[in-house]
């Protein structure tokens, strides 16, 4: 299996305080890694570091450039004048690619359909519920056909049906060779995932790897 992510001895600091301290992690194609731990243990900081939003104070990070990230909270204007379809389509953007193609639009529609939100394409994001918006961000992450998918508590705000739908989509991505790293409090989701591991984070360090 191809390595999609290789993090070695990563340290991430806020000021002088390390929030992640010497974490190493490898994610291979078709593998799903559940990252769990108590609040404030450093889970979200770790995913932000992998996503490139926080610099590593030390250690190395190698990952596929075809990565998508769904943060716990989207740092964007909720009142931004954009339709759900426009937001999803941004997931197909890549460096060096300026224009969207018909296949990008088809991929965006297909991702929205897979997540059960194809009817929301023309709706303004300011009119969507929290759960609908969550699925819009998930569709955006999926439609770019990522090789590495980082999800920070993606099930927050999702009802049971949407949760099932999401895991159906994730199983499809895993079968296509994507590696998924998911921050979650609910490790029961591991059932039905063939290649899966649970990593427990405590005080910025790996406390368990199952």
């Amino acid at each position: 299996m191809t390595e999609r992510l290789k993090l070695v001895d990563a340290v991430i600091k806020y000021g002088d305080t390390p929030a992640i301290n010497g974490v190493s992690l490898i994610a291979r194609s078709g593998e799903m890694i559940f990252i769990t731990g108590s609040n404030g243990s450093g889970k979200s900081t770790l995913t932000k570091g992998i996503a490139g939003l926080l610099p590593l104070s030390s250690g190395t990070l190698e990952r596929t450039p075809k990565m998508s990230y769904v943060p716990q909270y989207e740092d964007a204007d909720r009142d931004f004048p954009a339709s759900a379809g426009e937001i999803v389509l941004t997931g197909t953007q890549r460096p060096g690619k300026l224009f969207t193609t018909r296949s990008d639009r088809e991929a965006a529609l297909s991702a929205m359909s897979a997540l059960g939100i194809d009817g929301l394409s023309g709706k303004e994001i300011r009119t969507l519920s929290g759960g609908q918006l969550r699925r819009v961000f998930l569709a955006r992450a999926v439609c770019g056909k990522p090789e590495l998918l980082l999800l920070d508590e993606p099930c927050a705000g999702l009802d049971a049906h949407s949760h099932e739908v999401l895991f159906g989509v994730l199983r499809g991505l895993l079968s296509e060779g994507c590696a998924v790293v998911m921050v979650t409090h609910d490790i029961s989701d591991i059932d039905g995932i063939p290649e899966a591991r649970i990593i427990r984070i405590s005080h910025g360090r790996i406390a368990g790897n199952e």
Partner: protein
Amino acid sequence: MNDILELLTYPFAYRALIAGSLISVCASILGVILVLKHYALIGHGLSEIGFASLSLSSALSVHPMYIAPPSVITASFIIMYVSRKYRTAGDTAIAIASSAALAFGIVVSSLSGTASNMSSYLFGSVLAVSEGDLLLAGVISVIVIASFIVLYNRFFLITYNEDYARTLGINTAVYQLIVSVLTSLVVVMGMKMTGTLLISGVMILPAVSAKIIAKGFRSLVIISGVISFGAFVFGLMMSFVFNIPAGAGVILSNTAVLILVKVLVKR
């Protein structure tokens, strides 16, 4: 009406109409990004930095285009960088830079005895647009509109969520720089037409009105451009009819549109 049409047969009037329309539309398109990214005050800050540059070029008897665009572009990039890096410091950075620049410009023009020349830049003189200005406005408009068409997806992405763009591996600083350069060019050109004191209104007001109406980013850009064009033409006509400064007429037209939209469109 016939008087206005007859007036437009004069070269100074049609030059004002064409150059002003082009710059107004470009300013309003860029204004969409500035409003959505909460950089609304930047046009005002840059125009005052532009005023200082023009004072300096006037004192040194150098063509303004050699000094104003590089200074304004540099200032624009620094202000946007500071605003992005230290979110709460953005407005403070603009206030400091703009007041210091305005004071510098006033001192330079006063010491060099060119203060009377500078008043046209403070209040604008769209009717004094020369053939060269018209050509420059055309070139700047082509650059701004072409950039918007080619980089539309990038501008949308960095305006909506710069962090997400970075996770996709997109170099957001490059697009930030492009927006800074385009904004600076439009500000420098717009200063001559509407004046240092009013150019930020031409950038911001149409975008704010359009944001109330538009349901998506693309429609926001288009509606902003249309409002700006309409308000410019109406404001210019009013300036002909009532013999008032064109820049002020344009801003008052834009303000009237904003009030009208706010009253009529319920969201």
